[in-house]
């Protein structure tokens, strides 16, 4: 059965997010059962997504960039230092920051009674901290086949995904591509194929069958377009974890 209360007149406002709460709810409920209104919304959303092109640009003060990048660096350091501590130490630090006297006595009692449990918790937290290690970055350098090339392999949070970016690699003809190899115990697993622009830069979203940080090294070779089951061509770049 077709929905009877089409909300066409409200859809532009919904895309712009200028409806009141009642109207928003009315539209949301209708959209869940009306694909034609959803298509209307999609078309208006595309318009809203372009309005930024008409924003009057303005130059921020020059020091703002430095503030932001400094903030990024400062934000990373305390968290990573804190994460590295065992759980009991983080708890003790928080307790020292303002707990009343009686809490110390209670804490001492808990420690005595639960000594074996805390020991087990530390072992588990050490494993968790290892798996939450900071992002890894591997620098790749060119071989004599591509001496000016540079590259970075950045591993993502979960370890299985990462990004490869390269610069100044020679362009290849259309019958060839570069292929990334993930190397472990002498075995090479393909990390994907990519081409480079006329300026020699390229990027590849890597998806690996196991966490990237479990591989010992990475290499890039020239292969037939589409890739090969194993390396056959010249090695152009390499790097070790």
């Amino acid at each position, binding site marked *: 059965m077709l929905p009877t209360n089409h909300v066409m*007149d409200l859809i*532009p*406002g919904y*895309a*712009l*997010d*200028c*409806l*009141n709460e009642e109207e928003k709810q009315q539209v949301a409920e209708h959209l869940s059962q009306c694909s034609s209104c959803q298509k209307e919304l999609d*078309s*208006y959303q*595309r*318009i*809203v*997504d*372009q*309005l*930024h*092109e*008409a*924003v*009057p*640009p*303005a*130059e*921020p*003060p020059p020091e*703002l*960039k430095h*503030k*932001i*990048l400094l*903030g*990024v*660096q400062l*934000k*990373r350091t305390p968290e990573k230092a804190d994460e590295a501590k065992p759980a009991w130490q983080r708890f003790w630090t928080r307790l020292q920051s303002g707990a009343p006297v009686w809490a110390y006595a209670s804490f001492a009692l808990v420690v005595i009674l639960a000594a074996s449990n805390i020991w087990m918790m530390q072992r588990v937290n050490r494993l968790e901290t290892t798996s939450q290690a*900071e*992002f890894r*970055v591997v620098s790749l350098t060119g071989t004599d086949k591509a001496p000016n090339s*540079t590259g*970075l392999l*950045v*591993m*993502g*949070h979960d370890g299985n995904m*990462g*990004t490869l*970016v390269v*610069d100044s690699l020679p362009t290849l003809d259309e019958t060839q591509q570069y292929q990334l190899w993930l190397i472990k115990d002498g075995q090479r697993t393909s990390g994907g194929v990519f081409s480079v*622009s006329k*300026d020699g*830069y390229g*990027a590849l*979203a890597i998806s690996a069958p196991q966490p990237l940080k479990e591989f010992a090294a990475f290499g890039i070779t020239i292969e037939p377009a589409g890739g090969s089951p194993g390396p056959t061509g010249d090695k152009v770049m390499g790097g070790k974890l």
Partner: protein
Amino acid sequence: MDYKKFDDETLIRLIAGSQSDALGELYDRYSRLVFGMARNALGDQGLAEEITQDVFMRIWNKASTYQAVQGKVVSWIAGIARNRAIDVFRHQKSLLDGNSLSLEELPLFDPPDSLNVEKEIESKLKERRVQQALFQLPKEQRDALALAYFRGYTHEEAAEALGQPLGTVKTRIRLGMQKLREILEDEKTSA
């Protein structure tokens, strides 16, 4: 490494991998948009700086949540900037409760013939198509759209700010959006 050569999506992936230089490059590309959005919405340099800082910190923290299927990186960034500017504007408005805005303080879309526009090269012409479309609308429709877009005004709030009946403002926003869609989608299909 020259980050200038990488496209926006690659920069976002690098940022998700904690590469601060990639964030620096993204800042170079889009800080004028973010700062411009914030200053246009708030009319205050200091608040615009805070919002810009906040937006890029959010990009740093949320880069891994960006998905290309949802749209371009620039649209994602503009969305973060717009939402943040609206939040700050609403907070400021609540602090100044009772003071209404005069028409001189309305946020404005950038006109296509403004001095901000550089030489008429093909890429700039393409960027200005949205501006050109907006400036084909009657001023009343454009003003209403600007209030909704930059400050997150509802129909009711826009009507109060403009001193116009609610029904009139609703119609202006609806017709303005319809006209924009007509112009921009037509351009796309005829390109």
